[in-house]
């Protein structure tokens, strides 16, 4: 038993420290790394609580998919282009303080009812063991008691997916969108420059080729102008480095 307690304190302290690091880190990618570590530590706490399924799903969904996508974006964005935390509107800041207090109160209420008042919840170890384990217990809950909430969540996610598909549609359908600057098209080999009169295909419209420059001049609509390739290579270079001032 004391070993479990020691493990719990180590993992708990690590997750709190990582969460602090996530908020305090200057570099957004470092924040992302701290968030990954926080999630891994929280997964460790789930395992200690006997909720292995939650732990594994937490790692697969949050660490393995969502955070990778977030890091994907953070790596491409120049840290200087990001809005700073202090620029948040006063409403946002006040609301966040309020919501934080509400969250702390909720957690305190939960802890007090479970420990001081000794009111044990319905999911005792015996109840979970009687349905065959925590995976089965979660499955039964989601697909019976919380079925409606579960289905609504999947509906919301489907809406998100459809939204993403609409945003990523090729130009012929997305023609109304006038300015789509610096978008990354993974799926369309031609990028979104399909309406150029002529010139080499299959590249982003960077004016490297004189023929292409002429084509850009005579194009009948606003074209996507991406940055010069060298503008992308400042990734990982921290602010104030001498080589940055040279260019």
């Amino acid at each position: 038993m004391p070993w479990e307690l020691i493990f719990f304190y180590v993992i708990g302290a690590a997750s709190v420290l990582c969460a602090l690091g996530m908020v305090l880190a200057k570099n957004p990618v470092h924040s992302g790394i701290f968030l990954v570590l926080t999630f891994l530590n929280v997964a460790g706490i789930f395992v200690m609580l006997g909720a292995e399924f939650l732990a594994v799903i937490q790692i697969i969904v949050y660490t393995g998919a969502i955070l990778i996508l977030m890091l994907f974006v953070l790596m491409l964005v120049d840290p200087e282009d990001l809005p700073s935390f202090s620029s948040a509107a006063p409403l946002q800041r006040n609301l966040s303080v309020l919501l934080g207090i509400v969250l702390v109160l909720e957690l305190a209420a939960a802890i007090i009812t479970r420990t001081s008042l000794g009111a044990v919840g319905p999911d005792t170890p015996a109840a979970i063991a009687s349905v065959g384990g925590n995976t089965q217990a979660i499955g039964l809950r989601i697909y019976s008691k919380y079925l409606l909430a579960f289905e609504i969540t999947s509906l919301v996610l489907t809406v998100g997916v459809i939204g993403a598909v609409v945003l990523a549609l090729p130009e012929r359908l997305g023609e109304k969108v006038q300015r789509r600057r610096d978008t990354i098209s993974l799926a369309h080999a031609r990028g979104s420059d399909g309406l150029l009169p002529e010139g080499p295909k299959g590249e982003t419209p960077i004016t490297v080729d004189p023929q292409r420059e002429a084509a850009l001049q005579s194009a009948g609509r606003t074209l996507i102008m991406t940055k010069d390739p060298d503008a992308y290579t400042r990734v990982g270079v921290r602010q104030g480095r001498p080589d940055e001032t040279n260019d």
Partner: protein
Amino acid sequence: MADQPIWVSFIVAFIVLNVLLISMAYMTWFERKVLAAMQDRLGPTRSGPHGLFQPLADAVKLLGKEDLIPAAADKWVFLFAPVAVFVAALTAASVIPFGGTIDFWGHPVNLFAADLNVGALFVLAVGSAGVYGIILGAWASANRFALLGGLRSAAQVISYELILGFSLVGIFILSGTLSLRGIMVEQSRSIEIGPLHISNWFILSQPLAFVLFLIAAVAETNRAPFDLPEAETELVAGFHTEYSGFRFSLYFLGEYINMIVVSLFASTLFLGGTDGPGSDSYWALGLLWLFLKTIAFLFFYVWLRGTLPRFRFDQLMGLAWKVLLPLALFNIFITALLRIIANGQLF
């Protein structure tokens, strides 16, 4: 399955770890020899008989090289990233069962480091955590080729992990458990159809899932023909362009251990793990069967590398989302439907 003192589990885990490291070294030898045979060459022959000491020579060479850190690199992330790949690859092996409980001079010993009740998902979770090593190492290198390789890796792994997970759902439906040990035990049953006794390997009941798993596993381990993160013709060396010496060798170790672990995982899930003639009476025979099955998968990996050219990136993503994902969903649907019919819950 017997409860055992935790130190016995540690010893089993230690043995598994060392066997994995040694087999990883000989996997490089195996790959070079097989590729050489496919390309009508000899492969390594100089160090030792048939070049058998080549992996050792390579290890010494890699460890002796200078550990370079680019001036613009994010130092701590750069140093840490390769370790993440390596650790994740080894951690996944801890839930692979190498047999049941054996009697070791009167002591019951479990032939697995841990029997997690969500073992199959654990392997996927650890695999997805290992990707951070690749994309963070790529970002921290401050090199555009490395970053491109890392971004490709992120997109590729997210897409193919989905398929890897979905291809297993059919097995979970049929076996009713997420534990790798449980899945293996389920497959050691035999189905009797008239006079025939057929083993219940999931490759027979889930052939579509097996094909999907195989494709997704190759992509997940960044191997040819899905090795776009390190496509040397376009990206110099991809995500590990700036790595040298010891840290490069950690990436290298991670990739090969991942291949071995995925092969063990596939053998356990689809080919019955240690199941085979005589494996019920002699555990060593079970280990031999598992070894042979794993070698078959590893040979398949090398064979693919020797045969197929690399995919283009949009083909890779198109294949995942437009072909494999619908097939995986179809497989889940059919399996669930058949299961309900078999249980008599539908009619």
